């Protein structure tokens, strides 16, 4: 079979798995994808060559570090076949990583599938806006791409142009407060539920702009917050931000749900807090605990040995994402995690080594998340 035929078959199998087909297990699919990538990705083959039993079990698949996306092309296919190229944020040295995708079909199926389960609480008409900069063309932000997909798919009005100022309520690091108020009014008048997709940074900027004033949104509003504060002006602790946003919008804290995603991944994790969502009904998750979809698994590994740590211990996340058929099925992040019952606690990025001497620290050199 040619590379693309195999790739297409694996993509189809992953989408089928995500849709509930369990004729092939997660482990089988992960190992099949890893074997496929070993054949067509010389970089991954070199990583495997360092391991003793690399494809014996899912836990043995070496993770491709996020930095590798900055240093090399992480894809089994040539650039000419790229359907999308999502860029990571830059470093001091200017290097930006690229997650190249040969098809967006799997990304769409997986992101929408789990997004619906985590975010859609009430049936009926819905309006979706983003506290994020307008999606560029072609899309270079995986987060922006996902937000655009949510707008079209969750409103269920057929295809429409998402690149309008009324949808993307952030520009030059400031939030369009009036635009959000208009979106709220529109939702109220049309009896639609409102879904606000926001970066954490944007929510902080919004609260700053409100200066303590309230901006009441329909009580059924759900807010999806994502991303950290790296490189931004200041950080706000997650629970504090959640409480302040809920108070400003006049909604329950449970309706503010955090998402975890990375440019280097195809799939996302969510908290299971929003009442009425499929995920919450199934898991009744607490804030701060993120849940994986069936097609993704987070392993907590030791940052020095990269071996799995004991249950309940803090390690760094290696993410096995079946959606990454054409890039890296296992991605090694620097995010600290702890496995808890059924989910994962995210504990922030592993800190860089404290400087001992005046040599430029790796952490000073690097920036970036999604």
């Amino acid at each position: 079979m040619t590379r693309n035929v195999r790739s297409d078959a694996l993509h189809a199998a992953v989408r089928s798995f995500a849709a509930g087909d369990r004729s092939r297990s997660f482990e089988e699919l992960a190992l099949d994808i890893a074997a496929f990538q070993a054949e067509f990705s010389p970089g991954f083959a070199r990583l495997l060559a360092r391991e003793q039993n690399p494809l014996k079990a899912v836990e043995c698949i070496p993770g491709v570090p996020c930095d590798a996306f900055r240093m090399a092309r992480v894809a089994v296919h040539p650039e000419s076949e790229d359907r999308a190229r999502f860029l990571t944020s830059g470093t001091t040295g200017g290097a930006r990583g690229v997650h190249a995708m040969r098809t967006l079909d799997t990304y769409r199926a997986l992101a929408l599938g789990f997004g619906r389960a985590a975010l859609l609480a009430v049936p009926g008409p819905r309006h979706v806006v983003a506290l994020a900069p307008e999606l560029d063309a072609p899309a270079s932000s995986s987060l922006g791409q996902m937000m655009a997909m949510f707008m079209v798919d969750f409103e269920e009005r057929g295809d429409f142009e998402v690149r309008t100022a009324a949808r993307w309520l952030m520009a030059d690091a400031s939030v369009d407060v009036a635009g959000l108020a208009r979106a709220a009014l529109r939702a109220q008048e049309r009896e639609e539920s409102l879904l606000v997709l926001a970066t954490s940074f944007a929510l902080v900027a919004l609260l700053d702009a409100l200066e303590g004033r309230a901006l009441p949104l329909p009580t059924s509003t759900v807010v999806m917050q994502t991303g950290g504060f790296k490189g931004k002006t200041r950080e706000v602790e997650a629970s504090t931000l959640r409480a302040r946003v809920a108070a400003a919008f006049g909604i329950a804290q449970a309706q503010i749900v955090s998402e975890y995603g990375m440019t280097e991944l195809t799939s996302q994790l969510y908290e299971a807090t929003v009442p009425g969502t499929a995920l919450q009904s199934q898991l009744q998750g607490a804030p701060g605990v993120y849940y994986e979809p069936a097609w993704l698994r987070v392993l907590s590994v030791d940052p020095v040995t990269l071996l799995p740590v004991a249950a309940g211990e803090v390690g760094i996340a290696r993410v096995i994402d079946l959606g990454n058929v054409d890039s890296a099925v296992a991605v090694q992040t620097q995010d600290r995690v702890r496995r808890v019952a059924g989910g994962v606690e995210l504990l922030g990025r592993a800190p860089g080594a404290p400087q001992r001497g005046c040599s430029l620290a790796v952490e000073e050199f690097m920036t970036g998340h999604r």
Partner: protein
Amino acid sequence: MSNSDARRARLEPLLVSARKIADPHSELGQTARRRLQASSGLSAAGVELALTRCLETAPSEAEIESLIRSTPSAQVAHVLLSANVFVAAHRAIAIALAASERVQVRASRREPDMAELLSSGAPNSFQLVSELTPHAGDRVWAYGRDSTLQDIAVTLPPGVAFHGHGSGFGVGVIHGPLSEQALAELVPRLAEDIVLFDQRGCLSPRVLLVEAGPELARDVARAIALELEHAERAVPRGHMTDQELAEVTTYCASASFSGAVFAAGLGFVSTSERWLLPPVGRNLHVQATDDATQAWSALRPMITSCAFAGSAARRHALEGSLRGARLCDFGRMQSPPFDGPVDLRDL
């Protein structure tokens, strides 16, 4: 006594103190070795190598003259030391002594040893203090992370001059083909530049740019890896923290994905088309490039030192594009002239 003579006289006790520290037979030298090994994390041989090669005990007349000439005077000279490579304290205090007869030094809380050792060998030269309180007319020389320096600069009272020296890294450049003999001479020198301070100095080379094609780059990478392997036996790498080791693990995996990685003692040497800064701990990235200045363009402000081997014309051209960084021969990166701060960048 002229002003210049007075400045020179203030330096002499410090140099005497440094000589005692460098002397393994002196009481102070023995104390220094014990304390510095504990605080720096370097191996005993690593401390010895640093004291032997990098502590300036006998600067030339020309260097002293240059140090004095390039240092502005101050009512009081304040020195804020970071947990820097330990020999840096000597140079920092020397600069302050060239500036003023009243010198106050706040040592790093984490690594105060070298400042205390120098003080005990030159008891009346400068004052060790727990806090600096500069006033108008004073000067502050501060060493540390760029972000820390920026924080300090904005909190100083009006009329206080500030000299900040931040973090950085060194690069090596090889231009054109090298004879076998030239390569054989260069490799151990570069290895020593890497081994010193286990690469924690702001002059330490982390990247080698080879303007001579990928084959030579690969050959050089292999040769340096082998040399670092030998160096590991003679001067073992010191203690690395878990976080430092984690950075090495991650970088090594990324480098393996993107190119070739050669084991080099406890460190590694990598080669690939694109690069990120390797972590400290005797790790080097070797990259073939047509033009080193293009390869480092985005990182240029962070480069403090560049070792060069190649034609005089190319060296001259690099000098022009490396203002603020020290250009030297391989094997001399960690022992710049004692003529002022090692970091010549204007932060």
